[in-house]
């Protein structure tokens, strides 16, 4: 018998006026608006939808919703290729492209199904027991084959052309799920007058009401509920929106899908929007999921969940078979049978229970259904589709029943996924035979099937919805519940022991875990549910075990002879259904991956030939085109300019902090190792601060502009941390100090004018300012108003040359920069970039960058003398720990390359001449450059014992480059040790 689907000419919730064309593996097919991809394919008689993960068994649709384990397709093509999408959740749209996956050469004829024949070898966990030989690394050989078989669909390697967005939301009462319970809750909460948000993953509202016929009273109920809720302006209804996770702080994250509306990325429209919502109360109304029955070959195409069969019939007007077996252990599947029989199908209903209630029996009889009570489905048969089944009625011989469709129901499991996300473990309710949510945390409640409710669901939803509204202070009248609801859950008893089936009986369909695998895991001792899961991969597929977890737990409990209450459930984790990585990333991708920080001079640099480089969040000019085409050579020209004439560079990225107040001097004295109280107005001083543990935290200069007003600079990299640290000390420990700190990094543009001609250059540029040695000696600072803008001039030098730092308000930065360049152009002034800046300081022996790497003490950096002996400062005590004061620490030295044709390399490891070249050596090179002054490659390095080895010849090993270079240890101050240039 083959499957035969009939699209009925009337009924359903499809729009027959609006046909949609789509492509399935190159074939053009057509279906209707209102179809999912699953119903569209079924309407086109596509039943064989994929191959199973491990055994490559033919699979059809099992469900009509998110729990679908089998019907995973690859949607889209090229850069839009999206693997593993359940056809049951994909709303059909015009032009949709899809194909089946995970079979070779095709789903119809899959060679990999050989694994099914060898199934007894490929039992759960087999790979832990083999593939170990013959040699140690042999797994690497086998892994290639295993990996080839892994995965489901295949991913695209191209950048995603679609856009994603994120949004923050706030609401009073958030209701998840629009079934009868959720709608009733939304209606009640909405009427109470608070902000209400209702989420529904489906594109229609109604949840399980949608399984009923459009001709039934349930449809009237659905419509009136929907209309009531839609009429409330304070209720926001979101369709195609899945709550993917519940997090601490009553936060719910959901994703809004817009793909079916064909969003245009060129217009900034997002394919999906990820929303983080902070609610004041959460009402869970996610309903329940139907469980399959466990019997031999229960995975054959043509065996579906009973509710899915009914949904296909009543929502999509699809009758999936003519000779139908309903196999159930509870009441709910009877409705499926009754509705099918009404279409003229031949229906046999096998119920495991000895009896059913009289009214059910009566309606079945009236519908012409053959009912067999106390009857179990033993085993189904068929090759690519179900052909029939063996039924076992208590006390009778097994009977063969031919059929082309089996609708099964193993009972219902409340959808406890989201309710578990915040760590509330579900508990077993043995009256309804399923897990229900654990105790509700404050602010959270549940309505309807998800809560395991046994009462009338509309009344329940109403009560919970109005309760949630009251809990957030809403006082409006929720009104009366909608009366006369026909809806109560048909909960079922736990399934019977079905272990040790002869043909494969699947528990987890996607990951091909059978009852035998569960038994195997038990026998091997993997009997905790968490071990069972990890050993067999049960519940780890894209469906996260929505149809399998409970059945597996029941089986294991039976094997262990324990009750389900004791073994609990495995941990449910977000997301509820898989969510695009793109949606999670939102707009923080590509150039917007992280914010970009630009100095006030940024545009000038770009317009004037700078090559920019990332420095943390900053973009800084690396080198300028006037000096050459690449950093490695351009910096030499730029340095030469500074050493011989005058250059200007952008230093705006330095951290800048105003420290003000009567106790500012005392504060600085505490945070810096050296003295600041004695710093006179009009002077700057270099300072170093330590962390509490005595390790160097940062360095920089601080200038005193008036009695109570200091201007502190930090390194670019540490600016944020230093600022937080200062605030921490002032706000927690030293609250009595009258000090204000304020980051003024964004307030000032900074530029350094450096070189022997710098004074002349600035005299031309700032004619009103006295820059003479007397007025502004080395380390002198002054404030002015020049050309209508406040200007701070600091005579400081990082490069070792006569130099000035000029600060002007950020918005005037470019003006000042251009003015200096213009007015000083007769002196040949040009800009220089970060590479030259960093190299100039190496030549001068200033530590920075990789020397300040959070591992070094003052002494390591040759700064021990700076530490005051007379006052306390942060880090003073712990810097004295024994190992931090040991003599053989790695400390700062200079290196000169002895081989004129060779280069020193960053990251080279240092050895004494007599050392064997292996191990960790005696240190390493932190920073390198070519000195145009010394005409050789030089470096700063950390070396064991530091400058006590001055003059020694050492070896710098870079095995990565196959190089060993000789160098001599020298003072790190390569040029102008006496500081003449500075004072000039």
């Amino acid at each position, binding site marked *: 018998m083959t499957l035969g689907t009939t699209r009925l000419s009337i009924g359903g919730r499809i729009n027959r006026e609006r046909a949609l064309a789509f492509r399935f593996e190159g074939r053009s097919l057509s279906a209707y608006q209102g179809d999912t991809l699953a119903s569209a394919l079924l309407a086109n008689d596509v039943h064989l939808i994929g191959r199973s993960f491990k055994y490559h068994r033919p699979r059809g649709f099992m469900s009509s919703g998110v729990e679908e384990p089998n019907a995973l397709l690859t949607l889209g093509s090229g850069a839009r290729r999206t693997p593993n999408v359940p056809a049951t959740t994909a709303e059909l749209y015009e032009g949709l492209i899809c194909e089946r996956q995970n079979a070779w050469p095709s789903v119809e004829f899959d060679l990999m199904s050989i694994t099914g024949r060898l199934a007894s070898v490929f039992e759960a966990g087999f790979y832990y027991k083999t593939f170990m030989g013959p040699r140690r690394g042999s797994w690497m050989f086998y892994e290639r084959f295993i990996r080839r078989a892994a995965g489901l669909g295949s991913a695209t390697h191209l950048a995603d052309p679609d856009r994603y967005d994120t949004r923050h939301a706030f609401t009073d009462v958030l209701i998840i799920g629009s079934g009868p319970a959720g709608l009733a809750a939304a209606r009640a909460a909405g009427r109470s007058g608070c902000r209400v948000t209702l989420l529904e993953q489906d594109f229609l509202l109604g949840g399980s009401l949608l399984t009923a016929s459009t001709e039934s009273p349930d449809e009237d109920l659905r419509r009136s509920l929907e209309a009531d809720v839609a009429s409330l302006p304070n209720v926001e209804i979101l369709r195609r929106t899945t709550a993917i996770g519940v997090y601490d702080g009553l936060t719910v994250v959901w994703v809004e899908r817009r793909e079916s509306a064909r969003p245009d990325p060129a217009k900034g429209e997002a394919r999906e929007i990820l929303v983080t919502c902070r609610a004041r109360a959460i009402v869970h109304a996610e309903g329940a999921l139907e469980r399959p029955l466990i019997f031999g070959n229960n995975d054959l195409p043509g065996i579906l969940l009973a509710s899915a069969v009914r949904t296909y019939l009543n929502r999509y007007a699809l009758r999936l078979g003519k000779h139908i077996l309903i196999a159930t252990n509870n009441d709910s599947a009877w409705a499926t049978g009754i509705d099918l029989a009404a279409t003229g199908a031949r229906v046999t209903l096998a119920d495991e229970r000895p009896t059913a209630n009289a009214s059910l029996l009566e309606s079945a009889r009236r519908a012409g259904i053959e009912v067999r009570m106390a009857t179990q489905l033993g085993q189904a048969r068929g090759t690519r589709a179900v052909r029939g089944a063996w039924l076992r009625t208590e006390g009778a011989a097994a009977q063969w029943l031919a059929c082309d469709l089996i609708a099964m129901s193993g009972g219902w499991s409340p959808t406890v996924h989201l309710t578990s996300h915040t760590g509330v473990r579900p508990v077993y309710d043995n009256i309804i035979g399923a897990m229900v949510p654990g105790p509700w945390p404050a602010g959270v409640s549940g309505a309807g099937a998800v809560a395991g409710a046994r009462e009338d669901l509309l009344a329940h939803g109403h009560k919970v919805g109005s309760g949630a509204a009251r809990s957030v202070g809403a006082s409006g009248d929720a009104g009366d519940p909608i009366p006369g609801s026909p809806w109560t859950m048909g909960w079922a008893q736990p399934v019977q022991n079905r272990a040790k089936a002869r043909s494969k009986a699947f528990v987890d369909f996607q990951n091909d875990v059978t009852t035998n695998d569960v038994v195997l895991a038990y026998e091997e001792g993997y009997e905790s549910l968490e071990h069972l899961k990890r050993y067999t991969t049960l519940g780890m597929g894209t469906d996260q075990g929505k149809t399998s977890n409970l059945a597996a737990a029941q089986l294991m409990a039976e094997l262990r002879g324990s009750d389900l209450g004791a073994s609990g459930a495995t941990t449910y984790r977000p997301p509820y259904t898989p969510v695009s990585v793109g949606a999670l990333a939102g*707009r923080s991708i590509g150039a917007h991956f992280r914010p970009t920080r630009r100095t006030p001079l940024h545009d000038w640099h770009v317009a004037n030939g700078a090559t920019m480089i990332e420095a943390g969040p900053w973009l800084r000019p690396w080198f300028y085109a006037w000096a050459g085409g690449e950093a490695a050579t351009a910096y030499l020209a730029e340095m030469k300019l500074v050493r011989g004439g005058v250059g200007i560079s952008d230093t*705006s990225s330095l951290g800048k902090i105003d420290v003000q107040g009567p106790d500012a001097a005392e504060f600085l004295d505490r945070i810096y190792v050296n003295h600041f109280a004695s710093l006179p107005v009009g002077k700057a001083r270099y300072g170093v601060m330590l962390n509490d543990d005595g390790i160097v935290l940062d360095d920089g200069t601080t200038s005193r502009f008036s009695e109570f007003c200091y201007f502190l600079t930090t390194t670019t990299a540490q600016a944020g941390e230093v600022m937080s640290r200062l605030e921490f000390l002032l706000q927690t420990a030293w609250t009595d100090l009258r000090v204000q700190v304020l980051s003024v990094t964004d307030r000032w543009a900074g530029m350094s004018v450096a070189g022997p001609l710098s004074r002349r250059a600035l005299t031309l540029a700032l004619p009103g300012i006295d820059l003479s040695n007397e007025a502004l000696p080395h380390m002198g600072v002054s404030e002015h108003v020049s050309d*209508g803008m406040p200007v701070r001039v600091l005579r400081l030098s990082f490069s070792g040359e006569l130099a000035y730092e000029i600060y002007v308000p950020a918005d005037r930065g470019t003006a000042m920069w251009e003015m200096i360049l213009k007015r000083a152009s007769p002196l040949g002034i040009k800009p220089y970039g970060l590479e030259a800046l960093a190299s100039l300081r190496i030549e001068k022996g200033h530590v920075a960058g990789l020397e300040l790497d959070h591992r070094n003490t003052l002494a390591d950096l040759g700064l021990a003398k700076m530490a005051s002996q007379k006052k306390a400062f942060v880090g003073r005590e712990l810097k004295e720990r024994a190992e931090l004061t040991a003599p053989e620490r790695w400390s700062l030295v200079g290196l000169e390359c002895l081989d004129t044709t060779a280069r020193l390399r960053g990251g080279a490891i240092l050895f004494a001449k007599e050392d064997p070249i292996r191990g960790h050596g005696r240190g390493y090179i932190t920073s390198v450059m070519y000195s145009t002054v010394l005409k050789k490659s030089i470096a700063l390095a950390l070396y064991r014992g530091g400058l006590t080895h001055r003059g020694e010849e050492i070896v710098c090993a870079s095995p990565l480059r196959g190089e060993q270079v000789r160098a001599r240890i020298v003072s790190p101050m390569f040029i102008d040790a006496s500081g003449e240039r500075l004072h000039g």
Partner: protein
Amino acid sequence: MGESRSALENYRTHPGMDGADGRRLLKIGELAGTSLLQVGVYTGGAVRVAAAVLPLLGELPDSSVRAAVASGRLIMRIAADQYWVVGGAADLAARLREAIPAEAGCITSLEGARTRLFIEGQAARAVLNRLIAVDLDPAIFPVHGFAQTGIHHVGGLLLKVAEDRYEFFALRTFALSTWEVLLDAARPFGYQIALPENKT
């Protein structure tokens, strides 16, 4: 000489951008030339500072979520001991500096340190909530409400100046980055870029 330049100078000249269906639901732009002062109060100096600024600024606000508005000036209490004064006469800084006793508090000009953006239109709130995790429901965030919060990983200050009009004070060095994400978020709604508005 010494001309002031905006961080967005070369970027806000784009022509107005159309939204999905040619809609332009939003107006986005920059308010240039804002004067911005920060008043800091030292431990124990609150009473003296409040008294000193009273004639110039009026009473300092208690609220740290709502700006005080008077004579074209906005005063926001941005921390327990810090206030922002937005707008005001050119000599305000000097007069405040003179008025506030040096042992009690201090004044720092942040002119140029923040880029003041605005976004106006019915969709403004929706656009902002794509970037900002603050509840902008009018019942909760009224006109002259303000919030210091993060936008695309960076802190800034959001101020509501009228129904459907908000301003955002972005750190100047991040301003272009903020501007870009703001436009990016606004695109599906359609926006047009306003010519620079001067405001003191």
